[in-house]
């Protein structure tokens, strides 16, 4: 622990720095634990219907009539008016890129050579800025830009399971806004 004095507050910086190598070389006593933590979340009506739709190659939204807003992903209530949503709407599988990133990191924060193109799709037929996150493909990192028109590329029907990954990615649909 460093107790070096400093003018002003904090007057010292309590704490003992440990390096990664100290851990690997077991220079300090430590405990290890691998918890086993599993869930099975109930999906509820809206999300069940949405995932069944994806399995069938369809994107479902739901209409809040009080706000006149199509919610996608759908939910059974509208967070703005706190009222129920009612009418199911099938949306086209096209949209524009709301925002994106070019990722050189995989899920465990390790570096990868071929970057992942990922972002938010603002779906056609839904209000501005309404959509979901997905991958982009069939375009290079130099071509991708905000506002680009895109279209879903679906997995073959027999490979779909009722998941957001039933869409492989969104590809350029030609033209930009």
């Amino acid at each position, binding site marked *: 622990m460093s107790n070096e004095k*400093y003018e*002003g507050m904090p007057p010292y910086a309590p704490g003992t720095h*440990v390096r990664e190598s100290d851990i690997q070389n077991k220079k300090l006593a430590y405990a290890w634990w691998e918890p086993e933590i599993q869930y099975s979340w109930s999906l509820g009506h809206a999300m069940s219907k949405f995932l069944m739709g994806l399995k069938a190659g369809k994107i479902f939204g739901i209409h809040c009539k009080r706000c006149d807003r199509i919610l996608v992903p759908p939910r059974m209530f509208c967070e703005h008016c706190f009222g129920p949503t009612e009418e199911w709407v099938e949306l086209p599988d096209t949209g524009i890129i709301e925002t994106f990133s070019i990722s050189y990191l995989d899920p465990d924060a390790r570096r990868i050579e071929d970057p992942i193109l990922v972002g938010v799709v603002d779906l056609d037929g839904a209000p501005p800025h*309404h959509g979901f996150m997905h991958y982009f493909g069939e375009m290079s990192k130099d071509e991708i830009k*905000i506002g680009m028109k895109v279209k879903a590329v679906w997995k073959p029907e027999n490979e779909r399971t009722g998941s957001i990954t039933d869409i492989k990615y969104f590809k350029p649909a030609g033209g930009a806004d």
Partner: protein
Amino acid sequence: MKEVAVIGAGMTLFRRHLKETGKELSYLATKMALEEAGIEKKDIDMVVMGTAPDAFDGTHMKGEYLLDGAAGVGLPYCRVFNGGGTGVFAPIAGWWHVASGVADVCLVVAEEKMGNCYPHPQTAFQHIWDPILDRPLTPNLVWLFAMEMNRYMTVHGIKEEDIAEVAVKNKRNAVGHPCAQLADPNITVEDVMNSEMMAWPVKRLDISPPSDGAAALIFCSKDVVHKYTDDRIFVKGVGWNIDSTMWTNRDLYFPDYVANAAKMAYKKAGITNPPKELSFAEPYDPFDYKECHHMEGLLLCEKGEAPTLAREGVTQRDGDLPICPSGGLLGVGNPIAATMGQKMCEVYWQLAGKAGKRQVPNDPQMGLGQAWGDIMQMATVMILGRGS
């Protein structure tokens, strides 16, 4: 309502791994705060713990686990939580414990031990995403910020170089901080621009590091403040606000929830012209663009104007509106909730004139601290000011 004063603060070293347990870190930070306030555990009425995801420390009901280190044994002790916003939210909770008249003296402790999650805190961050819509895409946390940063830059036509100025400023400011993890007196914009690309537009030096650390803050009622100190530093305003979980259903270029939280705090503090009336501010800066984004949300400048202010030096410690004089998260480190140390503890030390080499000039009268959390949806704001 009781007026609430701040009488002591403390914080530990911030590093990627610290040898101390979370309990011990909480103890060390609290000890420093008690020493500054000149009080003992028996003087404390209630304790608030602020600590972010259990999945970092790797302990379920982490608040309960930490409580003996945070002086909570035998006392009313509770934990509040809203992700990254906790660093300023825990002090807000401390404020209402005293302002409501329920406690005279309330200790607030914030702790985080991100190093416990092995091999990288990133593993815990995977579980902040929606399990049905997002997690099947195996997202990385940095994506979230990259997407928001891109939207912000594109809407306003902002250059990466201007945003990099923020990282440079904060890492240089941190040189005056004994607890700092990533202080660098010689860093330049080129260094930031040339650092490793993580997820465009986010580069390694745009990001604050994960850290272990703890901080503590002591509040007391105005009725009893004379017993402890001659300083008169009061909570002038508090605000917090949350936006929808559905982050893909809103335009990310501007944080409405930050503006709502700021307006709530300004109203309470009677502030009508924030950039003029605030002597300095400590907005949340886990990424360099976030400082800009939050300055705009806090109504400290026009939308899209913050990077210009950074480039022109307005936000330097000796500028017209010093921003993150502590060194912020980018320079001092980012142990999520324990960033209370660079936010509210720093605002208190600055107003008390105790910030040493980091002291903002010209006798600051009013300062703001802000944090941000959850999935780009939560803002917490607290304003401290000198009083009589």
